[in-house]
């Protein structure tokens, strides 16, 4: 296939940036990484990018395609090239560019190290054997364990763009990896650490990290799990936690969010008084409902019943989110299978059923 790319080149020595065009022939199965290799080998040896495993596990080749982070080795080019699209390739965002598509990852690693990302065993030393834990309990951190630290989430993080000190989605997901581990003893200490100014509650919930993660770690969900765990442990001094708590109280009592009470409940009375003039202005323009009578949902009973169902299940903190994730993954394979899912593994057009040599091959095949 004929592939065309535009690549943002950056020369560290001169500080010059330039968008350069490349056109070349590539095998149909080529990924973006294969294409960059062709450019480097045959067109311009000075093109710089990181690579290693080319199978989505080492995390080296995070970069941007048309402004969104991708793993180059996961990105197949056939459809893009056949559509005649010329993608723009550039270095990841939110990290300093070193050369071409290579960024300085040290700020990323420094934030990771700051999470104290190692197990603090919270059990008596069992000696020469394993510590027994159920698979179900370990599954809590399954998604967070998938992280390959490629930086794609950090590249796309909107909160980081405005607050460079934000711990960021990758580091927080790593934090959840330990907070959710039933063997770890430092849960409360970690949650206190992660609830500070640039932690859990600084996330703006834009979900860009979740959308761009190439491994299904779902970093925003990991941050939500940390938030839920923090509140479960009573670590809710942050305005973000108070804000979330008020949503629950409000929904439970009147079925709807009582916005006028949200400000005092989140930011406190003093701030609310300071904001009074602004609030009055909003009220005059009809932007906020009057505080009295309270905003009550028509089916308030239904809202309470929902709340009670969730409570009765006894699934609190991160487990509530994990439970939902499991339900989603159970239906996910139907999406992944596409047309194959429709016909099933042995339907018309499928590869025949296997048989052992010597066994009579019947119309249905032989299930050995």
């Amino acid at each position: 296939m004929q592939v065309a790319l535009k690549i943002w080149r950056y020369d560290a020595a001169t500080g010059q940036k330039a968008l350069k065009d490349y056109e070349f022939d590539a095998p149909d199965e080529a990924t973006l990484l294969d294409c960059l290799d062709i450019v480097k080998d045959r067109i311009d040896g000075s093109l710089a990018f990181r690579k290693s495993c080319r199978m989505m596990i080492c995390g080296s080749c995070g970069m941007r395609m048309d402004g969104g982070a991708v793993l180059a080795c996961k990105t197949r080019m056939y459809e893009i090239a056949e559509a005649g699209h010329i993608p723009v390739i550039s270095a990841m965002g939110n990290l300093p560019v070193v050369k071409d598509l290579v960024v300085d990852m040290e700020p990323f690693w420094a934030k990771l190290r700051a999470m104290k990302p190692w197990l603090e065993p919270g059990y008596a030393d069992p000696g020469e054997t394993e510590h027994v834990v159920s698979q179900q309990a370990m599954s809590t951190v399954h998604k967070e364990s998938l992280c390959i630290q490629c930086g794609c989430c950090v590249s796309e993080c909107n909160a980081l763009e405005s607050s460079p000190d934000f711990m960021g989605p990758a580091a927080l997901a790593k934090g959840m990896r330990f907070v959710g581990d039933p063997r770890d003893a430092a849960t409360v200490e970690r949650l206190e650490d992660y609830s500070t100014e640039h932690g859990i509650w600084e996330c703006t919930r834009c979900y860009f990290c979740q959308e761009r993660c190439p491994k299904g770690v779902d970093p925003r969900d990991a941050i939500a799990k940390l938030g839920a765990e923090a509140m479960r442990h009573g670590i809710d001094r942050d305005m973000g936690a108070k804000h979330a708590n008020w949503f629950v109280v409000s929904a439970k009592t009147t079925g709807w969010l009582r916005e006028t009470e949200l400000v005092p409940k989140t930011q406190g009375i003093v701030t609310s008084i300071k904001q009074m003039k602004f609030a009055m202005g909003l009220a005059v323009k009809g932007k906020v409902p009057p505080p009295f009578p309270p905003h009550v949902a028509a089916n308030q009973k239904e809202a309470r019943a929902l709340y009670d169902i969730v409570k009765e299940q006894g699934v609190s903190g991160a487990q509530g989110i994990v439970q939902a994730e499991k339900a989603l993954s159970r239906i996910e394979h139907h999406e992944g299978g596409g047309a194959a899912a429709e016909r099933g593994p042995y339907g018309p057009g499928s590869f025949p059923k296997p048989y052992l040599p010597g066994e009579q091959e019947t119309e249905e095949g032989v299930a050995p």
Partner: protein
Amino acid sequence: MRAAVEAHDAGADVAIVSKLHPTRSHSGAAEGGINAALGNAAEDSPEMHAFDTVKGSDYLGDQDAIEIFTAEAPGDIYQLEHWGCVFSRDADGKLAQRPFGAAGSPRTVFAADITGHVLLHVLYEQTMKRMVQGSLQVYEEYFAWQLVVNDGRCQGVVCWDLLNGGVKVIGAKTVILATGGAGRLYRATTNAYACTGDGMAMALRAGVPLKDMEFMQFHPTTMYPSGILITEGCRGEGGYLLNKDGERFMAKYAPNALELASRDVVSRSETTEIEEGRGINGSVLLDLRHLGAEKILTRLPGSRELAMTYAGVDPIYDPIPVRPGAHYHMGGVETDNWGATELPGLYAAGEVACVSVHGANRLGGNSLMETITFGRRSGKAAAEWALSENPPVNVPESVLHDAEGELKKLLGRSKGERPWQIRDELGSSMLENFGVFRREEKMLAQLEIVDGLRERYPKVVVEDKGDVFNSDLTQAIELGYLLDVAACMLQAGIARKESRGAHARPYDYPARDDENFLKHSSTRWAGDGPELSYKEVRMTKWEPTERKY
């Protein structure tokens, strides 16, 4: 990292030098698991593990090393668990174990099908813990290029600093090589771009012998055309191998073990099916459909993701096209049971080393375990050596000067061919002439090809002349490593006139010849090429017998 953590905890001043960030290592791509006789799933013992390993090695493995390996493996697994490794669990909450090829008991501990990934990350966590304490340093994206040998011992490494440019010399009382394999010798390989035989070539050039270099393992289930690995765990969980008719052909070659015969046997069977016209597009099929969605999603999610991304196949509904691909080098830098090489101060562990635990054919699940057990042992031994009475590090100034001169020469050249042509020719011809089945005339032809490429290599051109992230330079150097390693492999392969493990010569020497070849090959660099000799296999209690699965 396992060696570094051990040496650090033994009180040594330690630095990790890596051409990649540590979590980018190709150990992370290991999928199926790690073998230790815990006996959680069925009766097992280190002795059974040792016997399976000896038999799998086609009796070329050193039995004393194998006995140490299997005896110490369980303790190492428990250590990893206490460090936080997220292994999969059985119904009782103990570490789950799955069956693997040529194993007499289900002894492969795993984390779904991302075992290498979780091991790599738990080791990096332990590394970070020591980094934060300020007592362990990591020089990442430092490309180790030459060993410093002075006063008859290894005293450090010469590196190229990728991010900032410039030659950096790191002096050290001991150096442990942990640079992995050389799968990039082959066009179809499971290995990362980084697996270019760096440590093997560096040791060779420092006068240290390599052992059993003719033995390259071909993994039976790598995807067409990328060569990307699909784990043996797929067959461990019950997957079938089918030819184009849907026949489970392994029944013809290994009537008892079927799909779970050893890797050399399965790769040969697949190649025979393909060569005899019962393949599909040069591949056979790995069929997981009967396992069902639930098992595939919980036990083999990574393989499914790989198949969907690179083969366009969802294994819940369709079989995956697979074929043998270069996977693992049984040979490597010759070491003793503590990882020490012949050169004082130089140690090696993992795929770069040859202890030898794997002999002529490695069992699936034994390589991750080897990196841990012998990583730990070499770390301990190297620390003891470094902390014992020996003279301080002495690196002559000429080392830096000479290295800079050499690079200047390489970078100064602007007319000639680009390295990729040589690399591509090497990869294609090695696959064609030194693959699963080997013929005398093809091996001789390949030797000539490699000699020709080695003549062309000194004239290659590096286009990037800059200091910052000059991977054009490092890739050119890596190609030189590959060419040296290829020359060693061919010489040893031609000389081994028998079929043993991964070295199969069905056309002229179809049988194993214990009388003449129950011995390790040993290769040294002499002048401008490899020089071959032989060494005894260390036996303890298992006499060679016929090998059947």
